[in-house]
C-alpha cells in the first residue's frame, strides 16, 4: 500500500538508519583517504605534510606487505577449506537417524559463541603450550618431543583455532539447508538405483551449493577481519609470520602510531575487500538466482 502519507512516513522512518550508516561509512573513509596522502605520525603531529602516494608505495613495497597478503590468503582459504569440507561431513552425519540429535547440535555449535580472545587463550595455554599444554602431554605420552605450535607454526595454529570457532557456523548452515531438502528427490534417486555416493554428488551437493556459497561469502567477510585471536596468541609473530593484512595495519596504527601509513594500508585493504566482495557477489548472485 502506498499513499502519499505512508510514503512520507516511510522516508522519515528510514532516515535515521540511512544517515547513521552514511556518516559511519563516509566520514571515516574520507578522513582515511586524506590521511593516506599525509605524512602523519601521532607521536610527532606537528611534522605533517602532503606527500602524495609515498605512503602507498612505502606500504606496498615493504616485505611485510607481501607476506601479510600471503598470510591473509592462507588463513582465509585454509579456514574455508576446513570449515566447508568438515562442515558438510558433520552436517551429513548429524542428519542421520541417531539418538540425541538435539544435545549433539548444542555441543557442536558451542565453539561459535566463545569470544575470540577467550577461545584463542584456551588453545594457546591449555592445548598448544609446549610445557603444560595437552598436546604436549599427548606427544610426550607417544614418546615424541613437545612441539611449540604457536612458535614454530604460528599461522597453522591460528588457522586451527579460527577453524574450530567457525566450524559450527558452517555446520549449522549446511545442516539447515540439508534438512530443508525434500526427501522425495532422494527417494526417487534411490528407486532409480543410485548408490549413496552418486546420490551425494548429483543431488545433495547441488542443493547445498547455495548454502555453501552463502557460507563462503559470510565467512570471508568475517575472516578478513580476524583480530582478537592473533592479538592474544602470537601478536603477529614471530616477526611477521602470522601477520595478516588487518593485523599489519593495526600494528602500524596503534603500535607504530603511524597514521599516514596505516591510512594508506587501510585504503589498500578497502580496495582489496571490495574486489573480493565483487567476485563473491557475482558468485553468490549466480547461485542465488539459480
Amino acid at each position, binding site marked *: *500500500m*502506498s499513499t502519499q502519507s505512508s*510514503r512520507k*512516513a*516511510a*522516508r*522519515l522512518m*528510514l532516515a*535515521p538508519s540511512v544517515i*547513521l*550508516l552514511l556518516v559511519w561509512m563516509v*566520514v*571515516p*573513509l574520507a*578522513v*582515511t583517504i586524506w590521511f593516506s596522502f599525509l605524512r602523519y605520525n601521532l607521536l610527532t603531529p606537528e611534522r605533517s605534510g602532503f606527500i602524495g602516494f609515498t605512503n602507498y608505495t612505502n606500504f606496498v613495497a615493504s616485505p611485510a606487505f607481501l607476506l601479510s597478503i600471503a598470510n591473509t590468503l592462507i588463513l582465509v582459504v585454509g579456514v574455508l577449506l576446513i570449515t566447508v569440507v568438515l562442515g558438510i561431513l558433520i552436517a551429513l*552425519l548429524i542428519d542421520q*537417524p541417531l539418538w*540425541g540429535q538435539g544435545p*549433539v547440535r548444542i*555441543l557442536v*555449535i*558451542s565453539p561459535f*559463541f*566463545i*569470544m*575470540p*580472545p*577467550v*577461545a584463542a*587463550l*584456551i588453545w594457546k595455554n*591449555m*592445548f598448544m603450550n609446549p610445557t*603444560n599444554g595437552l598436546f604436549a602431554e599427548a606427544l610426550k605420552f607417544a614418546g615424541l618431543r613437545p612441539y611449540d605450535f604457536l612458535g614454530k607454526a604460528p599461522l597453522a595454529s591460528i588457522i586451527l583455532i579460527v577453524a574450530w570457532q567457525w*566450524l559450527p*557456523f558452517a555446520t*549449522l*548452515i549446511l545442516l*539447515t539447508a540439508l534438512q*530443508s531438502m525434500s526427501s522425495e528427490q532422494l527417494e526417487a534417486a534411490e528407486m532409480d538405483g543410485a548408490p549413496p555416493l552418486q546420490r551425494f554428488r548429483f543431488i545433495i551437493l547441488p542443493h547445498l551449493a547455495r*548454502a555453501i556459497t*552463502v557460507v563462503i561469502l559470510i565467512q570471508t567477510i568475517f575472516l578478513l*577481519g580476524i*583480530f*582478537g585471536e592473533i*592479538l*592474544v596468541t602470537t601478536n603477529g609473530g614471530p616477526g611477521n609470520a602470522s601477520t595478516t*593484512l588487518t593485523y599489519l*595495519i*593495526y600494528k602500524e*596504527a*596503534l603500535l607504530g602510531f603511524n597514521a599516514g601509513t*596505516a591510512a594508506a*594500508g*587501510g585504503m589498500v*585493504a*578497502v580496495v582489496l*575487500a571490495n574486489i573480493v*566482495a565483487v567476485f563473491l557477489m557475482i558468485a553468490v548472485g549466480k547461485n542465488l538466482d539459480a
Partner: protein
Amino acid sequence: MARAVSLRRKSINTAAAWTVALLLFFPILWTLLTSFKPEAQAVASPPRFLDFDWTLKNYRDVEAQRAYFRYFWNSVIIALGSTGLGLAVGIPAAWSMAFVPGRRTRDLLMWMLSTKMMPAVGVLVPIYLIFRDLGLLDSRIGLIIVVMLMNLPIIIWMLYTYFKEIPGEILEAARMDGATLGKEILYVLTPMAMPGIASTLLLNIILAWNEAFWTINLTVAGAAPLTKFITGFSSPQGLFYAKLSAASTMAIAPILILGWFSQKQLVRGLTFGAVK
C-alpha cells in the same frame, strides 16, 4: 523418510556423531573442569581429568578482583545498549522497507549490507582520532555507538525478513480501523512480529558481547568489556591456568547458554535470510 532404520546403523551413527560432538566441545569442557582445579593440579602431568581436588578458590580469586565485575558489567551494558539502540533505529527502517517498498528499496538493502563488508581496520585510524578528540575513548557510550553501527545492517536485514512475512493486509485493516501509524506499529505490528524481534535481539546481543576489534582498541580500562579483560591474560603470569579458566568460564557462560537457544536465529541473521 519414515523407514525403519536398523538398530545397528543407528548405533553407529550415534557413536560417530557423539564422538565428533564431544571432540569439538572438549576445549570448553576442559576449561570448565580446569576452573575448579587448584593451580598446581591444573598443570599436572599427566593431566588429571576428573580426579582432582575440586575447589571454588579460582572463582573467588577472580571475583575478588573487583575489576572483574566492572568488565562484566561493561559487557552487559554495551551488548544491551547497542542492541537496544539498534532496534530503536532499525524497527522503523525495516517497517518502511517491508511495507512501503519503493523502486530503490532493494538497492538500499544491498548498500546497507555492503557497509558491513567494509574492513574495520580501514577506518581504525580516523575513528580512533575522532573518538580521542571527542573524548569518547574509553567511554561506554562511544562503544555502544560503534558496536551498534557494526550490527545495524544485520539488525535491519533480520527485521526486514521477519516483517515481510506479516501479511500487509492486516496492517491495512488496522488503518481502516482508524489506527494512526504509531498505534499500528504498537498494537498490531509489534505483537505479531514479537518472535522475530526477539530473535533479532538475541542474535545481536551475542554478536555485541563477542565483538573484539573495536572494544579492545577503543578502550583502556574504564569502559572495557570482558573482551579486553581477557587480553590481560595473554602473557603468562606464573601458574594461572585455573584462574584463566575460571575467568573464561564466567565470560563465556551467559552467551554460550543464550547461543544454545538461538540456533535458528543464527542461521537466519548471519546469512541475511538467504538460508532458512
